[in-house]
């Protein structure tokens, strides 16, 4: 077990930021901590790394109790913080070299690692740049390079793609998968379900400081009753007809918003057929039809009654 968190409680004054949070991370996994803004992801990371006092809970990393003085444990951890944490006074190269230097003493070895990290985030052309001169996406990549240059066994990334252009984002996600392939265990926090779905082997969904569900994405989707979401372009439909449609077998809910008929059905096979037959039978004209399988957002919605992103 790489990380073991048991009943972690953290209060900020009256606010309970973490409420008996428990989860595990096994070697070789990419675990996604998914939750909306303010759900306590960053707080959890800071507590796990002993950067923040917490009120209650047991935290073990690499099988050892984590404390502020657990320097042996810290040696094998790489942290990429949510806010870019680099020195404005240092260039790109110097920044990575500084942070790598906190872990690796040997100069030659360090130089190799720093060059590798720069190549990894593709900042070769910006080595001599100061952070102030970098765009948001490049700055994020620098932030990542500073966290991973020393080749840690465990890498924790706290929303590394916030405010990043799609191209940089994809690079970052590929990079994380690459690091994982090289043997690093990864904890990745985000409020973007697409990212988490794309790269994480296991997902822990957090809301209000509590774990509300965890498992692989298939397991999570299997947990909920929603089977399929069907959207049909419909130009006119009567209120009566909607009511009748709602009473069809297998249909969970029907909404009609801005000429879109949104139908949620439970796990059956011929939901789409039922809907189409109903429309034809009632002589309702329709345009395009989409059918979607449930997303993590639906999982979140069904458990908490609210959207993942407000």
């Amino acid at each position, binding site marked *: 077990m790489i990380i073991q968190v048991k009943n972690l409680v953290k209060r900020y004054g009256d606010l309970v930021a973490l409420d008996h949070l428990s989860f595990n991370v096994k070697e070789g996994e990419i675990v996604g901590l998914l939750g909306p803004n303010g759900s306590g992801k960053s707080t959890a990371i800071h507590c796990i790394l002993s*950067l*923040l006092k917490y009120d209650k809970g047991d935290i073990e990393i690499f099988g050892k109790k984590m404390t502020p003085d657990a320097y042996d444990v*810290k040696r094998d951890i790489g942290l990429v913080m949510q806010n870019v944490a680099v020195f404005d006074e240092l260039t790109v190269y110097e920044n990575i070299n500084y*942070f790598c230097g906190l872990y690796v003493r040997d100069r030659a070895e360090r130089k190799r690692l720093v060059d590798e990290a720069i190549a990894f985030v593709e900042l070769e052309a910006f080595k001599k740049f100061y952070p102030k001169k970098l765009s948001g996406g490049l700055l994020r990549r620098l932030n990542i390079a500073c966290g991973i240059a020393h080749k840690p066994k465990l890498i924790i990334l706290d929303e590394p793609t916030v405010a990043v252009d799609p191209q940089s984002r994809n690079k970052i996600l590929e990079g994380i998968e690459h690091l994982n392939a090289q043997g690093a265990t990864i904890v990745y926090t985000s409020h973007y379900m697409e990212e988490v779905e794309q790269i994480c082997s296991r997902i822990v969904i957090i809301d209000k400081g509590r774990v509300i569900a965890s498992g692989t994405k298939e397991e999570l989707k299997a947990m909920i009753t929603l089977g399929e979401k069907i959207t049909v372009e419909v130009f006119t439909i009567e209120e009566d007809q909607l009511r009748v449609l709602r009473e069809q077998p297998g249909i969970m809910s029907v909404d009609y918003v801005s000429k879109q008929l949104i139908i949620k059905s439970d796990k059956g096979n011929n939901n789409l057929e039922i809907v189409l037959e109903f429309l034809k039978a009632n002589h309702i004209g329709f345009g395009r039809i989409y059918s979607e399988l449930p997303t993590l957002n639906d999982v979140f919605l069904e458990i908490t009654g609210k959207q993942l992103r407000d």
Partner: protein
Amino acid sequence: MPVFNLCLKIIRKNWISISIYLAIFLVISVLLSTNSAPKETHNFSQEKAKLVFISKDHTPLTEGFRKELAKSATFVKIPDNTEKLQDALFFRQATYILRIPKGFTENVLNGGSMQLEKTIVPNSAENAYVDLSVNQYWRLAKLYAKHEPQLSEKQLADKLSANFSHNTPIEMKAQIRAKTDQGFSMYYFNFLAYTLSAVLILGISTVMIVFNKNDLRRRNFCSPVHASSINSQMILANLLFAAISWVILVGFCFIFDSKNIMTPNMIYFLLNSAVFTLCISCISYLIGNLLGNLRNMSAVCNVVTLGPCFISGVFVPQQFLGETILKIARFTPTYWYVQANDEISQLTRFTWTDLSPVFYNIAVLIGFSLAFLALSLVVGKRKRLTDR
């Protein structure tokens, strides 16, 4: 030592603003020291009051008194007319007008008051000698008259003049002081308290503000470098910066006061200021640690370390400051630093007895430094784990 190197890099990145500070303070301190230093200390005893001597009492004693006064004052002749006398004072033709009323001698010899009428220009030091002479002469006259009542006034006058024929002790003391020509150095080193505070605070707070940014602090503390090692590397870098600033500032004293480089007093000035530098760095480091993420930290630092300069006699000599102010000032290292400087500037002999007050003050400074250092280590360790 990554943290140490980083601190130096941060300081180097800000060297322009730091050197502007240094330059401005250097100019100010040289100007101030040059102006404040007593210019002709060795002429001190020759400075004479310009005295208008008006006697309505003509006795052998008043005559003897006049002769005696001539030693410590220059006589000026101004007609005895209120308006003329006032003009003379106003235009500094005279600094002291002394009037002996009729029957004064008799009155004194019979044990009466020695009150003479005097009008003086305020705040002129040379008048003090006239006052002293007046006091001494007539007190002695009184004494003789009491114990040897058989003496005539003439005999009394002779005896007194014999008595005063050798140098007065006051003059000798003044000469001792005059020999130590440490005026410039003393003012420069006193003012150094201000300059050093300003420059060190600027430099050290620049570093501390960067390191105490919440994210960077956390980032550093999640690395395997021991918290104590991070702390000591920062302290070391700050001390190196302090030492360099000290060398530069002291170097300028050498340039402007080159004739005093070789005096033994200089060694103690240097020692004192070095210890004070240490002390100020420790305070700045402590404040930096306490208020690290405050944006206007340097403003707070300025108040905390420059305030003491005002109450400890850096700008105004300690003897002009009120008793209460000095009592408060004792709680600041600056007070002890200035005290030591004053002591050092008056040293002419360097025996253990002469030096012990100096060492006492320096020891207090060292005590302050250790206390501040210990405090900042405690604070630094505690800040590793935050509540928020």
